[in-house]
């Protein structure tokens, strides 16, 4: 289909926004709470191993009707060198 009005199509935006909203609705967790969870997690992990706080990613993901909390926590390379 040609796009006569040369605007961005709205369905992808609707889906993207709903994906985010539904994850938060289902978990009853606001973005602010997720941010504070992330800070606590960084604090806890940092007691054991050196991580880069700015590179930490915490996300809620959907898989059908279930949600999962996915964390990607890169370690500081110095930590590896020191032990080796």
């Amino acid at each position, binding site marked *: 289909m040609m796009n006569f009005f040369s605007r961005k*199509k709205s*369905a992808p935006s609707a889906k993207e926004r*709903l994906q985010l909203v539904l994850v938060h*609705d289902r978990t009853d967790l606001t973005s602010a709470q997720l941010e504070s969870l992330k800070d606590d997690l960084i604090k806890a992990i940092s007691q054991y191993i050196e991580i880069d706080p700015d590179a930490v990613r915490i996300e809620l993901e959907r898989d059908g*009707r279930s949600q999962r909390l996915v964390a990607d926590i890169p370690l500081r390379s110095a930590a590896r060198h020191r032990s080796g």
Partner: protein
Amino acid sequence: MTAQVITVTSGKGGVGKTTAVANLAAALAMDGRKVVCIDGDIGLRNLDVVMGLENRIVYDIVDVIEGRCKLRQAMIRDKHYPEMYLIPAAQTRDKNAVSPSDMIRICNDLRPDTDFVIIDSPAGIERGFRNAIAAADRVLVVTNPEVSAVRDADRVVGILEAEEKGSPALIINRLNPMLVKNNDMLSAEDVLDLLGIQLIGVVPEDESVIIGSNRGAPVVTDPKSRAGMAFRNIAKRMQGQDVPFMDLDSQSGLWSAIQRLAGRK
């Protein structure tokens, strides 16, 4: 006979719950099933007018609960299908006049000699909704391919899961194939992916639905209506038949417009 009790709900109002109930009931009656519809929207009675039975109401569901009449007396027989009945909602009372155990009791009384009891739930997730799902063996969630309706449907699905009502089946109502094609409406696949429940039918947007409501005659009786066909298919699936989903695309777009102009459709 042991009836299946089916509740039709949605979260958001105005997505077509009452229309779906009236049409599914009529389609089941056309298939020779004995059907009793219950309007669960106390204070905002509507199923009667959509079914064209508003002039026949003597007693309502609250009269049954409060013992002013027998269950049988509150069952209004349909004009066209003698095996289809409506138990109307009370119009002058509020939803607190009914409790979940009242609904369970009424449905249990209906079960022995009915094939399907279909309950029209009010919008929302409060008392009326809780009443409507209390007796349900199966829940159908109606939504439209719009952000607000999908979000509310998801809330309802979450509550049904928490209440251990089992996973409901989804009716996507008022899908506009043309808009979907133009990528300006969520597709049935999008909605399914977002909600993560099983699909029981997709009903295309169709003017004949409004015309049917105006007349108090459900659109399933119109053999030419696409929405009518979609509702008839859902009714077949409710009876355990394996009916393929309609190809909604074939009726929209330039090619079919040309075909229609050429008189081939």
